């Protein structure tokens, strides 16, 4: 029963939602809408589950003084500060997202610059990695190197200043070879996704039960 019931639920729900996608009329459409609302509610609760697991994990790490426990302290302080400011903003300003709320201040003054800084560092790492890895070792690597160079220059104004043909060739690369490869990848990916979905719905793929 432990296996059969979940498999039956998966089969019925999967078939129902696939059919309802193409036939969105009553009663299937209503049922699908109900399932979607349920999903949205369950998805909301997964955040609580995630938070519970995160807090427990870091509390244990601090308790046992495992390597890097200081970072866990910083994480928990940040977490509870955000939570308290969020609730405070909610009670005082009706919404944590009110532009005057301290939660919004925390977001724009701490979270936003931290996230932006982390991503901005990528420019340096990409430049260094491109210098080290982008080598014309064979024909395929050379073709990639030349086309990447053309696109990099053709997509920015300086490319046109160097040679007016660069943006034209860059557009051609994006519209034909790039698009053909992308379409092939997309078709392959989605055929794989359909196959995997069918395997799950039909109960052939059961790893999600373990």
């Amino acid at each position, binding site marked *: 029963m432990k296996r059969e019931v979940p498999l039956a639920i998966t089969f019925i729900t999967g078939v129902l939602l696939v059919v309802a*996608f193409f036939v*969105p009329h009553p009663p299937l*459409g209503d049922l*699908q*809408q109900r399932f*979607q*609302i349920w*999903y*949205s509610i369950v*998805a*909301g609760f*997964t*955040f609580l589950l995630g938070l519970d697991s995160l807090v427990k994990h870091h509390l244990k790490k601090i308790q046992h003084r495992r390597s890097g426990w200081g970072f866990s302290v910083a994480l928990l302080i940040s977490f509870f500060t955000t939570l308290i400011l969020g609730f405070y903003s909610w009670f005082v300003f*009706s*919404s944590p*997202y*009110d*532009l005057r709320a301290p939660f*919004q201040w925390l*977001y*724009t003054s701490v*979270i*936003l*610059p*931290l*996230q*932006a800084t*982390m*991503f*901005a560092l990528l*420019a*340096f790492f990409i*430049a*260094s990695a*491109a*210098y*080290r890895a*982008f*080598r*014309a070792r064979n024909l395929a690597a050379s073709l990639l*190197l030349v086309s990447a*160079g053309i696109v*990099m*220059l053709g*997509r*920015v*104004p*300086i*490319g*046109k*200043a160097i040679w007016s043909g660069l*943006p034209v060739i860059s*557009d051609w690369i*994006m*519209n034909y070879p*790039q*698009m053909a490869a*992308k*379409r092939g990848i*997309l078709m392959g990916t989605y055929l794989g996704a359909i196959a995997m979905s069918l395997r799950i719905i039909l109960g052939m793929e059961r790893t999600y039960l373990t």
Partner: protein
Amino acid sequence: MIELLDKLDRRIIYLVIGIVVAYPLIVHPVMPIRVSEEVKRAYEFVEDSLPSGSVILISIDYDAASEPELTPMFRAVLTHAFRKGHKVIYMGHWALGLPLAQKDLEEIAHRMGKTYGVDYVNLGYRPGFVTVMLAMGRELRDIYSSDYQGIPIDSIPMMANIHNYDQIDLIIGFEAGSTGEFWIQYVGSRFNKRMFFGTTGVVAPDLYPYYASGQILGLIGGLKGAAEYETQIGHPARGVFGMPAQSFAHLAILIFIVIGNIGYILRRRR
């Protein structure tokens, strides 16, 4: 010499990149912007095809990491939409992105004399991605019974007659991931909705096949796309001013790649 070319100290690379990015941002040189076909089409749809008062749904599907690329285009498109007298529904699938762009929404709305609840509304965030998109196709209130401040949707004048995608004339997504593809696959195909996207430079190639097949009206790709849209609306801002920095950074990276390859070829010959 060969060693020097082949194994350049990474600190030199970091220093050069830092200078070529910082210098144009301080000095503000302006470069001519060539507007691409995909941006022109997005612009023309908002400009010519939508009658004043049309409802545009804007989805914020990015966070601070992609802010420098996507906020300039969001600002440009929003300015254009408000200028044409369109109504804007603001929502998003990335929880951390919504408060980020909300500042810009409020600032532009205030500058252009727009009123909350009449000219624009902020629905906020709901978890669920595809399920939220699909459920909105039947009745928006099933997912968004209130706006981001908890004000009931039914008490917002602009939303009085808006129940699902039938009352929405255009969807514009600002995408840093694959949410744009979900919009196309689940909303564009099923509800036959017109849409276009502003994306990071990395995500843009993923959406080119949909643009070529006509499933999306236009595509604003990366900071360059933002600069192009700003040029189209005649309002140069962060996109246009960021182009020299991006140009010089691309050029510097290419020069480093060439140096690396010269060193590599010379070493192999030896």
